[in-house]
């Protein structure tokens, strides 16, 4: 019966039978989530998320919200916030949570694998060039340029982070940066820096919040 099949399709897509109430765009907004579409969507995100990290938010939004209509931009922003709080690679984290939300556990695994696959394939090609032709004078020349750019990029990132720490918290922001640099220069491990930052940051945030609450409760 055709009418039944219509109803089923709408139920699967999670849409409302808006076509009958005169709002066709609401029904056509969300495409049904199939394994094939999930794979294609996350492969595409993996190809387009060039720099990774926060830069991939617009890519995710364009694909999952605008193109597929699988979730609202607000929901996507929420998953992004969660993915940032957790350690690891943001692209993988966002893919895993949204994949889970769309198609369960296997969806999470498929989404994460598909999002990473383009990068891995690309790097196997780069690795082949790097390992096999590192002695070639043209490859070696390009690598010399790259080495310089890496040092420049890291230094620029450090300066920019230090400037924003200074703007946000003055000397109290710059002191941890200087202490970290001194620790690293004297042969200290970055692992200790990360652990100390997590402990200090959590304590500082928690106590500041409590102090504020007590003051708020007093007045």
């Amino acid at each position, binding site marked *: 019966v055709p009418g039944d099949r219509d109803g089923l399709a709408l139920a699967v897509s999670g849409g409302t039978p808006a076509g009958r109430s005169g709002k066709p765009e609401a029904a056509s907004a969300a495409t049904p989530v199939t394994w094939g579409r999930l794979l294609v969507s996350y492969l595409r995100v993996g190809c387009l998320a060039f*720099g990774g990290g926060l830069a991939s938010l617009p890519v995710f939004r364009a694909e999952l919200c605008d193109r597929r209509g699988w979730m609202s931009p607000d929901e996507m922003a929420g998953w992004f916030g969660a993915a940032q709080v957790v350690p690891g*690679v943001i692209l*993988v984290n*966002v893919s*895993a949570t949204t994949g889970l939300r769309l198609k369960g556990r296997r969806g999470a695994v498929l989404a994460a694998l598909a999002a990473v696959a383009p990068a891995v394939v690309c790097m196997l090609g780069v690795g082949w060039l790097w390992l096999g032709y590192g002695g070639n004078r043209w490859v070696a020349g390009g690598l010399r340029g790259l080495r310089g750019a890496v040092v420049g990029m*890291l*230094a620029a990132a450090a300066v920019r982070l230090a400037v924003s720490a200074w703007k946000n918290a003055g000397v109290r922001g710059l002191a941890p940066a200087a202490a970290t*640099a001194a620790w690293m220069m004297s042969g200290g491990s970055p692992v200790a820096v*990360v652990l100390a930052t997590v402990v200090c*940051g959590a304590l500082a945030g928690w106590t500041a919040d409590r102090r504020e609450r007590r003051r708020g409760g007093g007045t």
Partner: protein
Amino acid sequence: MMLCWTLFWVFFRISVLSIGGGYNMIPLMQEGLVEREWLTDAQFTELIGLSEATPGPIAVNAATLTGWRVAGAGGALAATAGVCLPGGALVAALGAWLVRKREHPAVKGVLRWMGPALAGLLGATAWKLGVVLWGGAGRVDGVAAGVAAVSFLWLLGWKGSPGWVFAAAVVAGLAFGAGG
């Protein structure tokens, strides 16, 4: 096989400690990979350059490339799995709870403190790798040093996108540095 497991665990550990994504992993990787003598400082600098200049997240690219270099295709897969697993599994397991808790004061405190710490970590790493660039091979690499200075000013002053900076750096290297 043993080497693949080691690769997996090394990258798993790096991934667990990297909060805030991306650049956070660079100092951790520098320590983990160079100390194990899997890469020299100069090779590590190349690794980061290649990872940044190609599509995909730096961490995934660097893991795949290191694994490939150290132990072939199996190593590439092991290292990539190690770098992806902690965050992906954690975020999938905690899901909606994390979305609610991301505004928790302790969480915000950690992220706020991570910025200054990262400034120090990256500054020190830039210095270490820069020293290798300048005098590591017994002589100054003028081409790489020049590119470093230009890209530093470019990224800081014009807010250029890293993609263009890296493309220009490769072109400069080919033009001035291919002669040996």
